[in-house]
């Protein structure tokens, strides 16, 4: 895994890992996304912000291979693509960590860690999972991310929400993901746990991954983000570099921008 990552690291900075341009998506007559553009570069965090129903989850589904776009282009390392399945997305180096379906709660941590990509030994009917390696790798990989689990055999559902997200991120990093898509990783977490998760996000970035961070929390986004894409009712409401955008402005935009001003006007007594 490490070999793969290192090979890909010295990529020209101008060739994005993932590039969406003018992407649209329709559900029947309903327009879910229209004309969205987005780039993900290695070692950088692109934040996608938006209110509920802004089209964040549709965007995620397109990038992670669950849905296909209806218009526009989707490039992976410069090559135009149409992803057929989450498996295909994974094989192309795009790993997605979902907010609530990141893990199977009743399964032990180590089984979750390798789910879908279990290493095997033996041949034919004796082909079996390499349980020793799986256990050991899980433990060491989690340690590398700074999570010390006493017992990788405990059901992952017994971990805290932040720890679960972190395991999912560690898993994506371990399997050589080049792009990490995170769906609202901090949504259900308290302040402390959110901090934990954001640290792992930053760690993944430092490991050279391109990160797409979907969130509706401008404070979290501004802490780690390098680039910000704002969605509103399925369209792009703005796209900024970190240098162009102050936290206050981001918060204002997220809170509804001019709409908020109207609202405050209405509420004024």
């Amino acid at each position, binding site marked *: 895994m490490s070999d793969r990552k290192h090979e890909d690291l010295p990529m020209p900075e101008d060739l994005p890992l993932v590039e969406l341009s003018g992407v649209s998506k329709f559900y029947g007559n309903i327009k879910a996304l229209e004309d969205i553009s987005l780039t993900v570069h290695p070692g950088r965090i692109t934040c996608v912000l938006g209110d509920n129903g802004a089209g964040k989850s549709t965007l995620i589904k397109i990038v992670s291979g669950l849905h296909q776009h209806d218009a526009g282009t989707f490039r992976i390392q410069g090559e135009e693509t149409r992803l057929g399945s989450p498996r295909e997305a994974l094989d192309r180096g795009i790993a997605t960590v979902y907010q609530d379906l990141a893990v199977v709660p009743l*399964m032990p941590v180590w*089984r979750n860690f390798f789910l*879908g990509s279990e290493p095997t030994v033996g041949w034919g009917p004796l082909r079996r999972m390499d349980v020793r390696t799986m256990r050991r790798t899980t433990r060491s990989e989690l340690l*590398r991310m700074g999570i010390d689990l006493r*017992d990788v055999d405990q059901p992952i559902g017994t971990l805290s929400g932040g720890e679960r997200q972190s395991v999912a991120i560690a898993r994506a990093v371990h399997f050589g993901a080049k792009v990490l898509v995170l769906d609202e990783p901090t949504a259900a977490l308290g302040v402390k746990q959110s901090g934990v998760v954001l640290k792992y996000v930053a*760690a993944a970035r430092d490991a050279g991954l391109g990160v797409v961070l979907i969130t509706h929390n401008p404070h979290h986004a501004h802490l780690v983000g390098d680039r910000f894409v704002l969605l509103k009712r399925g369209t792009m409401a703005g796209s900024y570099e970190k240098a162009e955008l102050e936290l206050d402005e981001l918060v204002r935009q997220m809170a509804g921008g001019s709409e908020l001003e109207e609202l405050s006007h209405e509420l004024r007594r």
Partner: protein
Amino acid sequence: MTVTTGPGNTGGTEEGSGARQPGGPSGTAPAPSAGSEAERPAHRPLPVRLLRRPELGAVVGAVALFVFFSLIADSFLRTSSLSTVLYFSSTIGIMAVPVALLMIGGEFDLSTGVMVTSSALVSSMFSYQMTANTWVGVGVSLLVTLAIGFFNGFMLTRTKLPSFIITLATFLMLTGLNLGLTKLISGTVATKSISDMEGFDSARAVFASSVTIGGAHLQITVLWWLLLVAVATWILLRTRAGNWIFAVGGGVDAARAVGVPVARTKIGLYLGVAFAAWISGQHLLFNYDTVQSSEGVGNELIYIAAAVIGGCLLTGGYGSAIGAAVGALIFGMANKGIVYAQWNPDWFKFFLGAMLLLATLLNAWIRKRAEATR
């Protein structure tokens, strides 16, 4: 197979180059040096490991029931009696084991009881009507039974309807087909005897013979049962398919998102159930020679009950094959123990229901305890 195996990285210690180690944040302990700590095998105390097994409750129940009947029924402890109990338990257990796997995979099968009968009927009638070697009938029966299982799994993954509905439909259709086709082909609702046909004796040896081990008369179904438990446990705990079974039952969306072939796993589980139904069906045929087409109705719930007593969660994602086997043993001991104890059997169903409830509560309690001891 589209799934690629992850590279067999063992330590990962050499790849520290760009990674900044975020020190143990929040409540977790500060990150120790990765190398030596990671190599430490995770040894948990035995009681904790035992507590975490899904079948613990069932094993405790089985031991209690065994002691109970040994005390109150003096004929219960004889080897001949125990082999009778084992025989009956095995006929339940052969089906309960794959049914447990299916339930771990998050699905139901209500057609299992009649599927066993269908399998026996197909085998018997094909051999008889074609005047074929009975082994030909056995082979055709395997195909037909697997086709039924495939139908269940295929309809389930295709339509996305609940398996309860799909297999309820299969159950009703099979019940009707068993009666209708048997009557149409044989002219009566039971099959004709095939005991005088070629291949019967060898087939009987495989599906319905008995061996004497150390004075105990052991039916071959017990061996089939043990074999199925071993294979199912192997699959569940040591193969990728087992990992997928737990995953599709415990969190199907998460499983799909990481590339687990959900449809294939579920269809495979239904094929497993069908395979066991075929074994049971052939036993029914070769042990009793003729098959009543109305048999088997109601057994599907017994299989499910055995799996649940054995620690399977109705909602999927949790359970074990050994547990289901112990559940079948509990069922067998209770069912026959009542006879050995010379009790009035009118109450048996009540007793069974109460036991099911107790087992489920006990399992839930143990699981809670297990999760608390982490």
